[in-house]
């Protein structure tokens, strides 16, 4: 199997819109946006162009859950950003199409915000 070479860049969230804007101008395609939240927020933006795969890493503290939107450069990112808003409780600034927390209809608000401690699966057994 071919293991693809993947490139990474780490940057500050304030620098994000400008960097993404450059990528958009260069013709990169937005592949995905992935949010994670453990000790801190970590958001990964992936792009590809001519078989080159680049991911931007943006990390910031849980106390300040604000993130600039990239919908200015990639309008299609609104679905990812609304998803993060609903699952992680992030605040997206400058989001061009904001469903204000109504994109996902969930029983629990921001279910991905708190990570429960990892629990080992119960050993084989049937609860009686």
């Amino acid at each position: 199997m071919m293991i693809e070479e993947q490139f990474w860049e780490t940057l500050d969230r304030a620098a994000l819109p400008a960097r993404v804007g450059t990528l958009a101008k260069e013709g990169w395609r937005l592949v995905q946006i992935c949010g994670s939240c453990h000790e801190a927020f970590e958001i990964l933006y992936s792009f590809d162009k001519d078989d080159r795969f680049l991911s931007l890493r943006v990390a910031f503290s849980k106390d300040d859950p604000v993130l600039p939107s990239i919908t200015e450069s990639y309008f299609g990112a609104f679905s990812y950003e609304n998803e993060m808003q609903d699952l992680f409780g992030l605040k997206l600034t400058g989001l061009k199409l904001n469903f204000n927390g109504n994109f996902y209809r969930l029983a629990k608000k921001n279910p991905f915000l708190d990570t429960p401690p990892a629990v080992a699966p119960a050993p084989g057994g049937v609860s009686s």
Partner: protein
Amino acid sequence: MPHLVIAKLLTKSAARKPSTRLYPAEKRAPPKGARGRLVMKQIETCVFCGVCGKKCPTRAIAVKRTDKTWELDRLKCIVCGECVEICPKDCLAMEGEHATAFVAKKIETHVQKPKPAASDPT
């Protein structure tokens, strides 16, 4: 633009036997190797090592060595067949036919009868 392109297909279908079966009355034979449902083939040879239960991704199997019981929660079983592959005594088997629907949740229990003593007349 062409109309009635499907006419040929319709005529053919009308002429030949239907492709569907009247299911409960008429059943097909499952192909060899199909994973339909897990069965305990022979509880007599089971040594209650419990590997099947440990290997089960959904924890559908519970093995109790002390009571000599092997239990299956069929609603948890995803018919992956890991247990059948791992069983050292070849007690478990995968049948091609699917398990039927349930009315109530239940756990299937298989108990090994105590081995008859050597002096016992048989």
